[in-house]
């Protein structure tokens, strides 16, 4: 019997397979591995953001600052490389530390002053976007031989497809995310806090420390997404990734994570982001539809998943408890 806890993620997987199957049935070009590997590359930054967001939502919080963080980190990285002539590896390291630190600061404000994450990360969202503009008002190309070399990495797979550096980086970060969530004490504490904060405290879970770590992790993952986005576009632009926080939240929810926290899987968020990518690809293949149909489809899916979760909770409660 399928555990009712796993039902949402199975629903997500089914939706993904149906959509992908539909594409393969309708369009010959869809059957090539190239479509799949492109999905991985094109959605790498969104998936990475969504992985970090999963932890936040699992704990019952929300992080609205991730989209601005992506733009800010991109602009910061470009500034370090092109204006200060710092080697990209060091520039990336600095950017990641800055992103993590900003996340940790938001986490501290949330846990120490007990302010709603929505407000604190909303402030972060404006702040990071502003900081990005402070560094640079325009789009800047990042052309450093090292970045170009990274972009050129390409591991061919059967068919015409192949894995780019950022697709592989994303997959590694996804696996790391899954391990953190299910195989570390911190991960379990995140589930516990999202499940029942008071009980978690009585069970000895360090609530404040864990909260700081959660937002620091989300900061790190969105900073990583910023680096990936900068490599993906080979440029930095302060207006990049507007609204990505909402796409990431949508991916997490479609992936079966309860917005109230406590229930969900990192892998579900990967599927959630991939579903958004598949819809986009299907619309591209169709050619006649406006790209705004993507939003329409995602809107419908979101509603469907939220209702599905409600139905599952209701169904689970109604059934008499096992003895």
């Amino acid at each position, binding site marked *: 019997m399928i555990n009712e806890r796993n039902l949402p993620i199975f629903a997500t997987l089914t939706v993904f397979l149906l959509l992908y199957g539909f594409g393969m049935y309708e369009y010959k070009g869809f059957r090539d591995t190239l479509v799949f590997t492109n999905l991985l590359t094109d959605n790498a930054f969104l998936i990475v953001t969504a992985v970090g967001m999963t932890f936040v939502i699992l704990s019952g919080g929300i992080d609205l600052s991730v989209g601005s963080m992506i733009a800010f980190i991109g602009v910061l990285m470009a500034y370090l490389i092109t204006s200060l002539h710092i080697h990209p590896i060091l520039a990336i390291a600095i950017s990641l530390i800055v992103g993590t630190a900003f996340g940790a600061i938001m986490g501290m404000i949330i846990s120490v002053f007990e302010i709603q994450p929505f407000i604190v990360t909303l402030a972060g969202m404006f702040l990071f976007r502003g900081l990005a503009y402070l560094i640079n008002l325009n789009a800047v190309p990042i052309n450093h031989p090292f970045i170009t070399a990274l972009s050129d990495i390409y591991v061919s797979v059967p068919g015409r497809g192949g894995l780019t550096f950022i697709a592989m980086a994303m997959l590694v970060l996804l696996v790391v995310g899954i391990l953190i969530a299910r195989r*570390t*004490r911190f991960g379990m504490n995140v589930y516990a806090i999202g499940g029942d904060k*008071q009980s978690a405290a009585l069970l000895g879970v360090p609530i404040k420390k864990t909260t700081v770590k959660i937002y620091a992790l989300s900061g790190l993952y969105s900073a990583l997404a910023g680096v990936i986005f900068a490599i993906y576009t080979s440029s930095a632009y302060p207006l990049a990734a507007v609204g990505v926080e909402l796409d990431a939240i949508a991916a997490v929810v479609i992936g079966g994570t309860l917005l109230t926290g*406590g229930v969900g899987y990192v892998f579900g968020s990967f599927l959630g982001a991939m579903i958004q990518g598949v819809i986009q690809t299907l619309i591209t293949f169709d050619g006649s539809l406006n790209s705004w149909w993507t939003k329409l489809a995602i809107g419908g899916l979101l509603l469907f998943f939220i209702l599905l979760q409600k139905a599952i909770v209701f169904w689970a409660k109604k059934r008499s408890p096992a003895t």
Partner: protein
Amino acid sequence: MAPHSNVKDHSRTTSDHRSALLEIRSLSKSFTGVQALNAVSLQVNKGEIHALLGENGAGKSTLIKVLTGVHPRDEGDIKLDGRAIHARDSGHAQQLGISTVYQEVNLIPSMSVTENLTLQQQEKSFGLINWKKADARARALLARVGLENIDPSRQLDRYSIAIQQLIAIARALSNEAKLLILDEPTASLDASEIKQLFSLMTQLKNQGMGIIFVTHFLDQVYDITDVITVLRNGECVGTFPTASLSRSDLVSHMVGKSLDDLATSSDHQATGKPQNTLLTMQCVGKQRFLHPLDLTIHAGEIVGVAGLLGSGRTELCELAYGSTKPDQGLITLQPESSAKPTAEPTSLIQKSLRQTIQSGMGYCPEDRKLDGIVAELSIRENMILALQASKGWWRSIAMSEQKKLVDDMIKRLAIKTPDMDKPVGELSGGNQQKVILARWLITHPKLLILDEPTRGIDIGAHHEIIQIMQELCEQGMGLLVASSELEELVMFAHRVVVMKDHHKVAELRGSNVSEQAILHTIAS
């Protein structure tokens, strides 16, 4: 800490099983002016089951919370195994060796049994949690509490509350606990589960663990405990060996009065006067809520409702008042003027609550904070609510009249407040309760239903509230009072309805109204 004390202590543990495990010396704690614990001293030995008893508000939960680091102490020393400890939080207390199982299951319902049992204590291989080991450990822990047959990979909330409670105990045993605190663990367990728990407690005791057992079931105290400590009003009344303390002495220690006093006062109550029927309930019940029952309440009479938690006390109050509509039976309230006894009694079931209030009923619910007061509104606004509601929102009550009414009530009930515009949330529990009482008294009810009127308020206010109830009764009001505090019920009630498993099992009157009789009825 001096090294030699450690050595001495160690030698003591090996030689004598019954050496001191937990020593509390003159522990005090107050919350915004209320002295919750006043110089409490307590000693729990190894291999001892120690009952911690007291009425609501005696300071039991505060003591436990200070022990486990949930509240910081004001002063006093706590020693565990001879070492002074200062638990920072619940997690730290667990590391020190103090595990607690609370009345409400404090586990995470959305996580699996294994995840709950191993939270913060997972075994790792290569830095990652090893779920195979965790599962094995969970099974071993479950076996200790006799739950070999449950599947630890399932979500916790798939199991009944009783099993969750046992799982919580299994968890409490997981981290080499020296001292186990069980805070009313039996409230949700049935007889066989209690037996299982007791055999487990005996086993742990024989292994040298100290157990603090909080309960309000006196039978259980005599069944399992070695020593009893009674708290009253934040102070330690004394510590007694269970075997040499009689039940009546125990009760009088808890209540702070000897049983003889209680007996005379209830005799005094029993002398009734000619009574007019106020409220009649005939075969009133509701499916899955309350079994149909009959009840009459006369003017100038206090009818008590006794029973254990979840026995149907609150349900009876709600049906009588009509905030929950019964699906069968007839409720009638005698009409206003007694000059016309032939007037048609009104049936209340089909009426709205507003009409119920207009016809002369008032209801003070059990959960003051949730259902009773509006904490942000002032005393005056809170008191006027019911009167205003019965008049309808469009006929406002003049401010001068409001002030006069509220002023009278503050004087009459001796509510301690500087002025009537203070938000009710800032008052103490007892005064909040008086404000709710005042809210109904302003409407001049003929019948007042009170659910747990003395819960969570200090002892002084207890007596005042009871006094007010008795005065109202003498003025000819009928009262229906549900309470978990039998000692009090017996003091003021003329008749007591005993509830059990959502049934009315007995109606005691006159000289039959005694704690013993009520407990006996519940137990049989």
